[in-house]
Each structure stands twice: as C-alpha cells, then as structure tokens.
C-alpha cells in the first residue's frame, strides 16, 4: 500500500493559484469603463462567434478572460440563474450583487474541491440609473470577489493597461472616445496595431429601455477619433 506524500495546505493552495494565474495571464485583455452614457466592455477577440462579452439580464453584462469553455460555462449558468430569478419573482429582483456572489461561491467551491481550478477572471457589470449607481464586480479564479471603481481591466498586461486607462478616463467621454481610449491603451501596452474588426464590444446603454445590453455598431466604432 502506498502512503500519499504530505502536502501542506499552504503549498496546495499556492500551487493551484499559480496554475490558475498562469492560465488567466495568457488571456487577451478586456477593458471595462463606466461612463455617463453607459458601461462599455471591450476586448480583442479574433472569433466572431465565440464571445467573451455577453448579456446576462436587463442591466447586467458579463465579461470573462481565460479558458473559453470555463467562462462560457459560468456565463450560461449566470443567464439561467438570472432568467429563473426574474421569471419567479420580478425583473427588478435580478441584481448584479447576487449574481456576483453566486459566481464567487461557485468559483471558490471549484478552486478548493475540483481536480483543477478554473483558469478564469470575470467581471459582472451592472448599470445603474446614473453612473454613481453603476457596479462593477470582479470575481477571480479562487472566488475572490472585489468591487472595481470606474474602470477595470482583466487579462494579460492588466496592470499596465489599467494605469494608462485610468490616466485618461473621464466620466463624460462619449462612447466613441471611450472606445478609442480602451483600444489605444491595449495597443500601446501590447505594442502592436489591432485590426478594427478584431474588437469585441458590449455596451450597457443608459438610454436603452428594459434590455439595455447591445453591441457597438460599426458607425459608432468608426466615429472613434484618431489620437
């Protein structure tokens, strides 16, 4: 009979965290910006059909970096959770906070109990009536749940991009200006030009009614001023 080696819990958690961080750190970055006009989520995605940014509910959007199948599983579970809650109670009862909490519980459980932790980092963005009511929740691979203020960046090079985004962010940026800010920040840090068709966007539109999530149109994208 073989006796398993003793591994101290600190080491176990560290190994798992290092493993997950490595996976997340390879993910193409996503920038999230709160604005007067709404909340913009944008990132490079060469696939037109495998989405990283999606609609969860009337005023809630989702973005994930890391392994596609893992954050897609989370997104689908989130849509089910939200639709079920809205169907059973009322549409207003579906909140970003409860969803972010549910994600945090689930990821925490997977991190400590499953064979392999999820290699993901996700954002739950909730649109308020005014910008002060907006909420950005960030949930990491181990279930760590944090509030983000005004802006958030996930994925490869997130610290450098976050720095550059924060410097030029203003609440009164137009949608096109915000797109320009996010795309140039990513391009500068990655030191390469990214084709305009390679961006995936999601926008929670404060002017929208009921379902406020939409994709940015080609015209709005092209209106983005050159810097």
């Amino acid at each position: 009979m073989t006796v398993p080696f003793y591994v101290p819990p600190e080491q176990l958690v560290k190994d798992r965290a290092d493993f997950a961080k490595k996976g997340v750190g390879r993910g193409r970055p996503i920038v999230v910006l709160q604005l007067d006009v709404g909340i913009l989520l944008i990132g490079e995605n060469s696939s037109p059909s495998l989405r990283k940014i999606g609609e969860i509910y009337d005023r809630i959007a989702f973005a994930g970096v890391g392994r596609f199948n893992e954050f897609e599983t989370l997104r689908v579970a989130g849509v089910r959770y939200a639709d079920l809650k809205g169907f059973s109670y009322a549409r207003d009862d579906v909140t970003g906070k409860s969803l972010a909490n549910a994600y945090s519980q689930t990821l925490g459980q997977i991190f400590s109990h499953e064979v392999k932790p999820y290699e993901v980092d996700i954002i739950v963005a909730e649109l308020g009536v005014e910008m002060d009511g907006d909420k950005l929740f960030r949930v990491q691979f181990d279930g760590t749940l944090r509030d983000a203020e005004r802006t958030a960046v996930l994925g490869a090079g997130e610290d450098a991009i976050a720095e550059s985004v924060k410097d030029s962010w203003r609440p009164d940026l137009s949608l096109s200006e915000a797109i320009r800010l996010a795309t140039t920040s990513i391009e500068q840090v990655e030191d390469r030009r990214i084709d305009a068709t390679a961006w995936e966007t999601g926008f929670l539109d404060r002017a929208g009614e009921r379902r406020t999530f939409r994709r940015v149109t080609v015209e709005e994208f092209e209106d983005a001023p050159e810097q």
Partner: protein
Amino acid sequence: MNSEGVGIGPLRIGEPIDAGSFMSVLEHRGLVPEWRFDTPPKDAIPEATTVLALTWADGVLMAGDRRATAGNLIAHRRVRKVYPADEYSAVAIAGTAGMAVELIKLFQTELEHYEKIEGSRLSLEGKANFLARMIRGNLALAFQGLVVIPLFCGFDEVDHSGRLFSFDVVGGRYDELSYATTGSGGGEAKSFLKSEWKPSLDRAAALSMAVEALVAAAEEDAATGGPDLKRDIYPNIVTVTREGVDEVSDSELAPIAATVVEGRP
C-alpha cells in the same frame, strides 16, 4: 426527480440541460407551471376572449379586446391579451386568463433566454413551433375546459415579410396569409374581416379595420368588450414590421375608436 434539482438558486454548473432552453431549466428544477384539478372550477376562472391578427402593407398587427369574464360576470375590464414576445414578434391569447398570462411570460422568457445563450434569435418558424409545443403540453387541461389558444405573428428576419400563425387546442400550427381570429367573439370578427380585408392595407386602414372587427364581435358576443369611450378603455394593438414590435398607444387609438363606434350601422 432528485431533490437537488428543485428550486431556483444557487448558481449551478454542469446541469444536464438543453442549451438555450429555459423550459428545460424549469423542467430540470421542477418549476414548470402546472395546474391540476379533479373538477375544474369553470365559472370561477376569468376567461379572456376575442383576439385577431391581420397582415397589412408593412407587416402584421394583432388586436385584442380588454374584457375578461367569469361565468356571467365581467371579471376585469382592462385585461391585456396582446403582448410583444420579443423584438420581432407578438403573441395574443384567448382562453383561461390566468394560464394564458403565465404561458405568455414563459414564452417571452424562452425567446429571450435562447437569444442570450445562443447569441442569435430563434427563427420565426422556431418560435411558432415552440408555442405549439407549449399548447400541446396543456392538452389534459384543455379537455377539462381550461383552453388556451394563441395567435402568433412576427416579422421574418430572413425573408423580410410579416407572417402570422394560428393554433388549435392540440397544438396544431397553421400559417395564415391574410387574417386570423380566436376566442368566443372570433367567429364574428372573422366574418367582418372576411368581407373587409384587402391585401396591402396602409397602417391607418389596418388599425381602423382591427378596431371595427372587435366592435363587431362585441356587438354579438357578451364576453367581448368593445371600446369604452367613457372609461377610456381601448383595444390593445401591437404592430410588427421591419422596425420591430410597436405597441399602439391609447392616444392614437382613442380617435380611431370614436370614429368606428360613431360609424357603426
């Protein structure tokens, strides 16, 4: 069903559920709305009556009266029977009111759920077939007298035309090219439309024709309520065109209803 599957929360990963189907989530969690009776309390349950749909130049429109009856009584005067189903389709239901409202809510959620999970809307045909399946699911109740019969219309985003579907109690689905009606006053409304309807009506003519068909039904059927100018109660009308679903406002309907009522023989 295992007890683990029942209920709303928490978030669940890896459930064996058909991707994109909200109905399948409800089935898995044991939350599908159900009604069971040994003897249905027939006269105590409000019933919604006449609804109609017709095609016009830019698409389709659907209209419903506002009355719900329970036995001989008028149960409600401002019931809504016509609803947008999603951005490009609308659904109207006649029959047992409480069940109808729940089924419409379920239908709306299913369409939205599919769109969010799959990233694209169901085809118009797909939506109509799903609605037929929902009606079939309540067949046992239909035999007890609790019938729900919908009309469904939408703008086909592929072939760019308005289409309309009627259904029967066993979930049969029928394409209609011109107009369709259902409910207790449906026969009367249908004979009116049969003599008046023409292809390519403009919006004003289509609206006024829909209102007049409901008035004609209300004149003959006690369970159908005509426009009530004194109480400001007008039919619900929804149009579906290339631009999507649009609910016609009461302020637009008020003068039309007044003219129609005035001009009735």
